[in-house]
């Protein structure tokens, strides 16, 4: 079974990496790009078990994301 956790900065937290990439892309002549935000994702392989979502939430909250600056979203693959 597979799950994915997406983590990104909350609104209002400065994202210098995104800004740097935006600058680089614009300098390449791609003016159609207006904004870039950078996030991380985690592809997680899991053994089927109870309360998967609960448990993943806990892991995301405690480890994968820092709630002071980041928010996350979990996707669990239906298959298997």
């Amino acid at each position, binding site marked *: 079974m597979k799950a994915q956790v997406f983590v990104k900065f909350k609104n209002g937290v400065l994202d210098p990496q995104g800004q740097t990439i935006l600058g680089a892309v614009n300098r390449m002549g791609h003016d159609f790009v207006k904004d870039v935000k950078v996030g991380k994702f985690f592809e997680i392989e899991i053994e089927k078990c109870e309360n998967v979502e609960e448990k993943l939430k806990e892991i995301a909250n405690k*480890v*994968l994301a*820092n709630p*002071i600056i980041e928010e996350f979203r979990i996707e669990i693959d239906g298959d298997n």
Partner: protein
Amino acid sequence: MKAGVVVFPGSNCDHDCYHVLKHVLGMDTVFLWHKDADLKGVDLVVLPGGFSYGDYLRCGAIAKHSPIMQEVTEFADKGGYVLGICNGFQVLTESGLLPGALLRNRELKFICKYVNLRVDNAGTAFTSRYADGEIVRIPIAHAEGNYFASEDVIKELEDNNRVVFRYCDEYGETSEGSNPNGSINGIAGIINKSGNVLGMMPHPERCAEEIMQTKDGFHIFESLRKVIKGVL
């Protein structure tokens, strides 16, 4: 009195802190292994710099779950002195012992160099040997030292004199140019409400001896030694 230096896998300033506490200040000093839930009766805990767990997720994010951190949190809640330097500061914010977070440096690069710091609160247990407003030179060495917190947290820190160190120029002025990493208000080090937990990005242990470029970091350890002696 006794000092303990926590060793996480990936800590790399642990021996430096141990050296300064033990050999320069002559304190009884021990290492505290991250897997042990035991503070060995120390009066001061130092969370050293380095790359705990490689800093592969977020700096300090994995270290905060180690058994030793449970103990450190209890120790801090009871008023024990905790000094977090660099990665140690990041561990403290991740564990919630200090507010805010440390983001990537504005220029996205690791920076290792001496910087000017202004001591904005010389009334703490960590800074009593400095004078208010004193300018000191202490090196930084980090890729993620850009202090961030919500507006109300910043306000609370400022209103209560909890910003202890601030990046500044040679005249003590804070400015864009003297701020190496983009920290809000040039914040380089903060203290908790009860004044027993301090986190700072600069490395005082790297300039605590005559042979180094400055000896300005020495006074933090010396301040602590005085206070702890007084307690006992």
